């Protein structure tokens, strides 16, 4: 199996016009996420490597951010006032590249070079080689400190640009994150949003078996964050929450996005074996069939048992202004 341009079939979806309704936005994100998953599945299958479990757990978040939340376009990737998104769980580079391609940051054809000799598309993202990548990640626990630094720079500039960082839940076992969270709270970085891909699995086992994160909302709250929990596969919830930050003036936001690794593929979902397994031909076909059957706008219902015990409730204001538009940008 070799990855070729024939396998880079994804349409470029781009952003909806700014006056689109929330329903239109949500449908657009859902379709983008579906296309991104199909494309990412092809990348991993044909390249013979990747982290499909973590990719699929994060894609709805990525699609929401790039599809409707972040103030960044292919033309503004070097604009100092762009929003920043930092993929701290850098092992899902494949999902990021595919998302960047879906929204026009990266030629779709370039995806065919994924992991190939001398390609810009390394197994972990490289800001020197891929426009739209903000930090070279891969070692866990690096993105959050970098995001804090960026949010600080925005604060120094009295700019309204926002900083989002996506971390894995297992990743939160790294102490560097807690250092950064303490500092984010101290500096009252309320335009910083940490999104946790709370799939409850890490590389080898569940987070609970390995080094339990719970009560995660309590931890984040005790470290000075406003905590919100969402269904990380529900594009509407994600859109509402991610566009509405900050929830508490003066506090950075901690969004616990409840997800499943490998979602929504029947045999991958919530199965730790799929951290970096590569689907064989039969699995590939099956996954493709499942993805093609998914109606745009699907979400995964996560039972409350999968949420944390001590949920901290926040009113989630509906976004009335166009998502992605920064209100009051100075």
């Amino acid at each position: 199996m070799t990855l070729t341009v024939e396998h880079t079939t994804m349409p470029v979806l781009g952003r909806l016009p700014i006056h689109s309704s929330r329903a239109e936005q949500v449908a657009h994100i859902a379709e983008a996420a579906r296309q991104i998953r199909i494309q990412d599945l092809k990348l991993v299958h044909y390249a013979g490597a990747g982290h499909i479990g973590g990719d699929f757990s994060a894609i709805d978040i990525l699609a929401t951010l790039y599809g409707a939340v972040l103030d960044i376009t292919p033309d503004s990737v070097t604009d100092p006032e762009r929003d920043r998104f930092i993929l701290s769980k850098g092992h899902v580079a494949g999902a990021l590249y595919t998302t960047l391609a879906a929204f026009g940051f990266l030629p779709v054809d370039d995806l065919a070079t994924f992991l190939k000799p001398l390609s810009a598309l390394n197994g972990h993202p490289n800001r020197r080689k891929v426009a739209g990548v903000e930090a070279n990640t891969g070692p866990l626990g690096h993105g959050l400190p970098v995001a804090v630094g960026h949010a600080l720079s925005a604060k120094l500039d009295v700019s309204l640009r926002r900083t989002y960082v996506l971390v894995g839940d297992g990743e939160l076992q790294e102490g560097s994150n807690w250092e950064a969270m303490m500092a984010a709270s101290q500096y009252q970085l309320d335009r910083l949003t940490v999104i946790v891909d709370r799939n409850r699995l890490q590389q080898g086992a569940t987070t609970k078996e390995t080094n339990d994160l719970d009560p995660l909302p309590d931890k984040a709250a005790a470290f000075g964050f406003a905590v919100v929990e969402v269904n990380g596969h529900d594009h509407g919830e994600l859109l509402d929450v991610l566009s509405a930050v900050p929830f508490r003036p003066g506090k950075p936001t901690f969004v616990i996005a409840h997800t499943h690794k490998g979602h929504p593929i029947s045999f991958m979902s919530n199965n730790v074996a799929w951290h970096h397994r590569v689907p064989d031909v039969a699995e590939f076909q099956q996954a493709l069939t499942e993805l093609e059957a998914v109606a745009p706008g699907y979400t995964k219902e996560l039972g409350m048992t999968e949420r944390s015990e001590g949920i901290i409730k926040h009113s989630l204001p509906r976004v009335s202004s166009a998502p992605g538009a920064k209100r009051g940008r100075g």
Partner: protein
Amino acid sequence: MSIVETSIADRPRYDCRDAYVETLAELAEADHRIVGVVNDSVGSSKLNSFRKAFPDRLINVGIAEQDMVGVASGLANGGRIPFVSAASCFLTGRALEQIKADVAYSNTNVKLCGMSPGVAYGELGPTHHSIEDIAWLRAISNLTVIVPADPIETAAALRWAAASDGPVFIRVSRMSVPKVYDEDYAFRLGRAITVRAGDDVTLISNGTVLWRAIAAAEQLATEGISARVLSMPTVKPLDTSAVVAAARETAGIVTAEEAVSGGGLGGAVAETVVQQHPARVTILGIPEFAPTGSAGYLLDHFGLSPDGIAAAARRLVTRGT
């Protein structure tokens, strides 16, 4: 001691992690003090069978390398012999100060096993490449640094480490390699092994590159160049007399390692040579953050192939004549 009858490149290949986990289990069976310590790296260290056999004795601290090394130091304080097993890039890069203070300077009986070192992680890129580990650790006092070349040497080095008291770092390769040694190989700390005799030029290597150096010597032999191949599993302490003898007796030395081309084995050899017997040395390694590519691709790309090593040796011999 070494097998050189058939071309080394044609022999079956082994992932040294298999020898690692087999040996660790064998050691743990014999000595209850031995425990494993990992950072969510059970699978990548191939320790699933170990965990099954010794469920309490595989301590997984989660994705937390600083804690992992500190915990190992505390376990040693409590009389255990911890074998820390984590991707070498994270073990050494993330926990370097713990290695310095809690292991080397505290002189605790901790064995640090750097898994999948060098460019083994290939396409995962420079964040996952551990080409700096040897240079980083060589700079720390009171720390033995071992880079085994095959499964036999990996097992032997582990046995030696378990039996010796004090801080040891051992690289455990993931890139598959042919066997270089016979099964009766005995690891001796700080001793080079002449895996191939020769007087024209010397190749000094270890780890996954050693067999490539041997293959280079085979190639050179067909051209009438007799290359001595020194296996240098112990980077620290270095076998300086073997290096000096090579400097004295051959036209020059080529060092070849799966590591940054300065500060590691090549650096140690250079420092010995200039201080004890100035001679020409060519240092082969990985001089920069590697581009995307598989481990094998990258080694070839940076001239760490049999051809690349042979070419460097040839240049030394030609210059000498």
